């Protein structure tokens, strides 16, 4: 569903993303870990067509992002760290507007159902979003993914700043979307959420994919240790290096 092949993006002489090859299938949740400046947001921008790659290509459900960005974006829902909405509009009005931009016009009852389905209380849906918390905004983002029937979901630090309960609620919605066949790419610093939700975890270092593991492979691994070892200078560590002494 989401594919990159040798995707490279340079800013001056610095490679923000270098030869990145990824394949995220329908129903998969791929957590992309990495420190600030590792290239996570650049990868998302390349997949959205907001940046043009220097080499390689990105595809969304077969649509080449560079040559046909509009078609590719029509298959994507994007949820940034803070979902930005129009403060003078209610949740339902925001959803109506954004879903019509995504080419899906829905009636009021459907929109309300989607918002409630995303966990927003009915009375909140008809309130101006200037009063919304961050978690409520993220729910509108999820409702938008549902409304546009997106095939792929790009998340950029979606749980950053959410309280544990809101973060948990958000994870459940994410899993529900994946269960419905949506391919999810989640750029995050949240190792806990990555381990909880992801079916695969990739670690980016200096724009290159340093590690790419399935959830099954990481079952007995201390993810934090493995992650820190990936970030340390030198060659990528073996998976066993992330295991604790007792696990070894």
């Amino acid at each position, binding site marked *: 569903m989401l594919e990159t092949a040798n995707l490279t993006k340079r800013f001056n002489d610095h490679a923000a993303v270098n030869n990145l090859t990824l394949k995220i299938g329908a129903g998969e949740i791929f957590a992309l870990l990495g420190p600030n400046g590792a290239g996570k947001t650049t990868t998302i921008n390349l997949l*959205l067509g*907001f940046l043009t790659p220097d080499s390689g290509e990105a595809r969304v459900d077969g649509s080449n992002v560079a040559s046909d*960005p*509009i*078609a*590719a*974006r*029509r298959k*994507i*829902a*994007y949820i*940034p760290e*803070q*979902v*930005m*909405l*129009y403060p*003078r*509009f209610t949740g339902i*009005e925001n959803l109506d*507007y*954004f879903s*019509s*931009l*995504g*080419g899906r*016009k829905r009636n009021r009852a459907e929109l309300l159902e989607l918002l409630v389905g995303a966990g927003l209380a009915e009375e909140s849906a008809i309130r101006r979003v200037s009063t919304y918390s961050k978690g409520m905004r993220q729910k509108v983002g999820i409702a938008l993914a549902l409304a*546009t029937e997106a095939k792929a979901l*790009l998340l950029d630090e979606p749980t950053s700043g959410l309280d544990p309960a809101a973060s948990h609620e958000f994870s459940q919605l994410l899993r529900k979307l994946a269960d419905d066949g949506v391919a999810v790419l989640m750029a995050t610093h949240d190792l806990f959420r990555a381990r909880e939700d992801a079916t695969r975890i990739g670690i980016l270092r200096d724009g290159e994919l340093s590690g790419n593991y399935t959830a099954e492979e990481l079952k007995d691994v201390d993810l934090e240790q493995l992650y820190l070892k990936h970030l340390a200078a030198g060659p990528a560590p073996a998976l066993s290096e992330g295991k604790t002494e007792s696990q070894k």
Partner: protein
Amino acid sequence: MTFSIARKEFQDTWRDGRFRWAAAIVLALLGVSFLLARQQVEHQRKEREEATKMERDNWLNQGRKNAHAAAHYGVYVFKPVAPLSVFDRGLQPFVGSTVYLEAHRQNQAAFLPAQDSTSMRRFGDLTAAACLQLLLPLLIILFAFGTLAGERESGTLRQALSLGVRPASLVFGKALGLAGALAALLVPVAAGGIYAFSGISGMDTTTDESWLRLALMACAYLLYLGAILAISLTVSALAPTSRSALSILLVFWAVNAVLAPRLASDLAQWSHPMPKLAELDAKLLEARKQALNSHNPNSPAMKEFIEKHRDASGKLPPNFRVLLMEESERQTNEVYEKHFGGIWDLLEAQDEVVTWGGLAAPLLGLRSASVALAGTDFTHHRHFSIAAEDHRREFIKMLNNSHGASGRELWERLPPFRYQPPSLSQAVSVAMPGLTILCLWLAGGCAALYFASRRLKPS
């Protein structure tokens, strides 16, 4: 999709309390300007009608006197008030409204409305034209500068573009939405304008020409406001931040509204310099001295004229006095035609420079078209002055050929002055350069907006 974007933009703008307040202030100013202008037009019309009637009575009841003495007694004619001056007074406050017609002399229109005003007039009049030319563009700028630049900063532009909307559709939809919000504001303006125009008491504003002039004026203002909207959105699309967009647009407004009219006026004076009044008066006096004057028997021109008409026996023809007065009038007319014609040509050339200055600042093009269509420009004033002078010549000719008649019977032979202003087609031909300039600005603004939409960056 474009309709959805336009609808959202319209709603968002109307929900913004700042827009409602600003719109209310602009509407209040426009309402007051319409009321004041209507009152003023009604007052001027009444005043001039009464003066015309009184002047006619004075003329008819002047008693028995020599026809030439009556020619020196003279008559006053009054310029009718242009109905569309309720929108744009143009030059009216600064040019005379009354011409004194007398023998041997072509007088300029006198009694400038500005002479009756206080020094506060230097700050300009509150007219509908001023509100639409200066305040409404400011309102457009204040609500368009953040349309794209502000959304880029807040992140909603990124959110919108991530959904696969075409940037051109987004920009076009936003332009439509803002235009819709402004149109909603212009509906009461148009209603107020039509009320102010159609209900002027004692004035026939129901002719097709008046309405066509009004419709064309409305088109000129829509072209202007459309161009300002397109420019504002272009800057908003290209500027890195909303603050820089606002700064750029305010500089544009200041140049267009404040600097350009003054610069254009200086440029016009530089390219077509107007001689000093004292110099002009001295030249006119000298030229009149050279011309034949029936009241100066010792002038060389008079001696030459007498010699020319003396027969072999040295006698003058019996109608010599009529011939003398006719020739004296003809020569004096030539002097004045050359004198005023030169000044008027110069003023029209200066107007032309200012109008074409509209290529640099659209307000100059709009002002030119607006005053031409309202009938308050210099061309209309010149037309009136020429009509008054034609009437004076008829008046003098009639009295010169009175063959000794005198009294009311003779005075009634002089028809009242009935002025017919320039036709719509004449007004349109004067307004055409201004309208063309506005079309160019709108087309240029739309083209710039289209190219800006292609370069629209989400962040």
